[in-house]
């Protein structure tokens, strides 16, 4: 169902107000973020006065994720939050220095908001979870474990080093890759067979394929293992894959919740894809904390028309982290606001065409 004009306007007003609050926070000499305070010295505008609406964020130009490589990482922690325990979430890092994002409570807030989108019938409160995804410095485990705990469950995890997986692929060691994938699935099978009453899981498309295939070889299935809800994300997910998963791997009694997100943004949710919509997956960012735009390939200042294809641009607006206008490594189609999410969404997310050939997607 599409959103009405009032809801869209109100959402936009909330976003503009939120932008003002967050920019004031990050650029206030008392509370602000050292990185941004330093950078502001070279601005030809005054963020505290000149940024009043979301559109005014254009003054910042484009965020470069290279700024996140290397330290000191504390320059990203706002002064007002320096006393709080801080995590670092990393992305990349197969070769060279990974990008780091500092986090204190954002992951909890993001995943609690996401939790509210999950249907109780398939993700019952109190159910235990399996986290079948990356371990280590990506820290996705931390977020998924919090989601599980927030819903009253206990989360079981596997060891999975995605950096090693990418190395195996780059070296062409496909037998080793297969063996490593089996090692990961072995761990999942062991957990599922241990009577832990697991009903929900996080996983990626490739790992779900692999888990379903293994269970099938053993005469079982995801549904027969008692799983009723799957939170799926981490890599590209096409409509065709979701359809295949629903029709052939999961069956009618298992819900799949596709998500799009990353360390910088948090989590964009989608409704369960349906056959009548050709299994189209439309993601909506948790606005106003994060905003997804689909922009013209040749002019990132221009949002494309609804239904048109462009590059995905992210903006993160939390008190912990300010990322204005970051051009993601993805592209997709711009989607109109919905009744549930009265702001723009994005569908058909896939690797940005200029990077697609050089992007290595591993088992995770």
């Amino acid at each position, binding site marked *: 169902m599409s959103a009405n004009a009032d809801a869209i306007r109100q959402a936009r007003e909330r976003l503009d107000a939120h932008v003002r609050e967050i920019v004031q926070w990050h650029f206030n000499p008392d509370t602000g973020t050292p990185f941004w305070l330093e950078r502001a010295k070279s601005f030809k505008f005054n963020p505290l006065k000149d940024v009043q609406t979301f559109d005014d964020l254009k003054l910042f130009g484009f965020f470069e994720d290279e700024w996140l490589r290397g330290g000191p990482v504390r320059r990203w922690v706002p002064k007002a939050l320096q006393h709080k325990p801080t995590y670092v979430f990393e992305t990349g890092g197969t070769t060279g220095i990974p990008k780091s994002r500092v986090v204190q409570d954002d992951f909890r807030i993001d995943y609690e908001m996401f939790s509210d989108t999950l249907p109780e019938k398939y993700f019952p409160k109190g159910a235990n979870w399996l986290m079948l995804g990356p371990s280590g410095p990506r820290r996705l485990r931390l977020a998924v474990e919090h989601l599980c705990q927030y819903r009253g469950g206990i989360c079981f995890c596997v060891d999975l080093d995605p950096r090693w997986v990418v190395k195996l692929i780059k070296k*062409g060691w*496909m037998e080793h890759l*297969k063996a490593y994938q089996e090692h990961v699935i072995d761990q999942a099978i062991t957990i599922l067979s241990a009577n832990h009453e697991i009903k929900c899981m996080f996983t990626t*498309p*490739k790992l779900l*394929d692999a888990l*379903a*295939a293994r269970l*099938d070889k053993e005469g079982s299935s995801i549904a027969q293992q008692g799983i009723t809800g799957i939170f799926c994300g981490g890599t590209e997910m*096409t*409509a*065709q*894959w979701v*359809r*295949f*998963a629903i029709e*052939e*791997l999961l069956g009618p009694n298992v819900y799949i919740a596709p998500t799009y997100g990353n360390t910088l943004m948090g989590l964009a949710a989608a409704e369960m894809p349906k056959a009548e919509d*050709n*299994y189209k997956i439309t993601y909506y960012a948790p606005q106003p904390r994060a905003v997804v735009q689909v922009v013209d390939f040749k002019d990132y200042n221009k949002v494309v028309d609804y239904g048109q294809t462009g590059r995905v641009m992210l903006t993160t607006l939390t008190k912990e982290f300010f990322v204005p206008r970051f051009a993601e490594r993805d592209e997709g189609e711009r989607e109109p606001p919905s009744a549930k999410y009265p702001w723009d969404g994005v569908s058909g997310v896939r690797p940005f065409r200029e990077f697609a050939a050089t992007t290595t997607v591993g088992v995770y």
Partner: protein
Amino acid sequence: MIHIPVLRWGEPYKSLDVDKVVHFATGEPLAEVGRANAGLVERDLRHAGRARDVLREIPITDLLERVKKAADLYTNAELPLGDSTQTPDQFVRMQSATTGLPEHMCRFNMTKNHFVLNQMDKILEALTRGLDLGVLSRGYGMERGVPISYQAQSPVLGLVLPSNSPGVHTLWLPIIPMQIGLVLKPGPQEPWTPYRMTQAFIQAGVPRQAIAIYPGLGDVGAAVLAHCPRNLIFGSSATVEQYKGNPRVQAHGPGFSKILLGDDMVDQWAKYLDLMVDSVLVNSGRGCINCSGIWASRHTKEIAEALAERMGPVQPLPPEDPKAALAAFTVPGQADAISADIDRDLKEPGTHDMTAKFGPRLVKKEHCDYLRPTVILCDSPTLAIAKKEYMFPFVTVVQCPQDKMLASIGPTLVCTAITEDKKFQRALIDATHIDRLNIGPIPTIKLNWLQPHEGNIVDFLFRARAFQFEGPLPE
């Protein structure tokens, strides 16, 4: 627009993900091809055994008849293509339009496929060295009073096919008559032959459950290779290197096919000029059997000049022109990269571009590019370019003493050695880095279909083993 579906053991499956195949010269979309996903391939391959089961219900002699019927259907009939149909002329036009190969070459490849299908009984007889073909069905038999057993190593053969060379399809045509199913991952620009051949097989009475076609991206090819116990893959030298020593995969890469002129015959090189030109130029130099190196101890400059005089003037012509000798490069940037690679190598002293005077090598058009024939004279076999191969009429003429040739040529798929020197002939026969050996004036592109190509496909699919029995056995 025609929609070409994924084929899951003969059953069409309309994928939500599609790739458009476009005309190389106009950019006009010709068809949309459904894209499979890796999990789907793995899931379907649980039923691979059924492909062999349904084929084993039909005696090999009957399958051979059906394959001959399929040859005629493939060549002459209007056959289903996705949600439409396709005549032979449409097939030729579509294949040319997406691969860049001139139409007369597509027709020639069609004739070649027809010939192979039509001769299949003789080909299998030759490849099995006269084995009673019932042994392949039953798995056992008697020969000269000795029990024998040939055990299928896989119920299906997986094939990751290329886009650029419709000639390779002959390699998988003998599979169905051996009662082994087919799992085909077509090249992105050449879905036409796998679909048309499959429809011809089905109309000729081959069970549809014996064939699956999975178009898609790299993950689909990887899934085919991972889940079929026996596979053929076509790719670059890197692909060949990646699968070296893997008993599940037979990798076909560049051929580095060559003509060696022995010291006893090289003074008469002009007599063999037509043979050399044909070996380089036929099929626009795209095949692994096209010659990419001509080696001799003397007269190399004259040979290179004569080749350049013959091939240098060749220009791109429209694909429907019966005189068109060059295939277009339809993948953006590919021709530029090849030409730049050659230019880099030409900086090495001792290399001479003999075709430079005939105009630029790279011809850029709006939607495609061409590379015109290139002849490079090499003063020594140690030059980097001496062992290069590209998918257009490209040849190096390499000066090398005869007694150093075999140590210098490197892996060679087809070697035509023009010599009557018995000692040299013996060394050639014993050289293990030569696959197909022609002694005498035989073009590298002339194949005897009754002989194995890069390994015997029967040996790849069936294992001869010891087998003893007492009492009755299953038929």
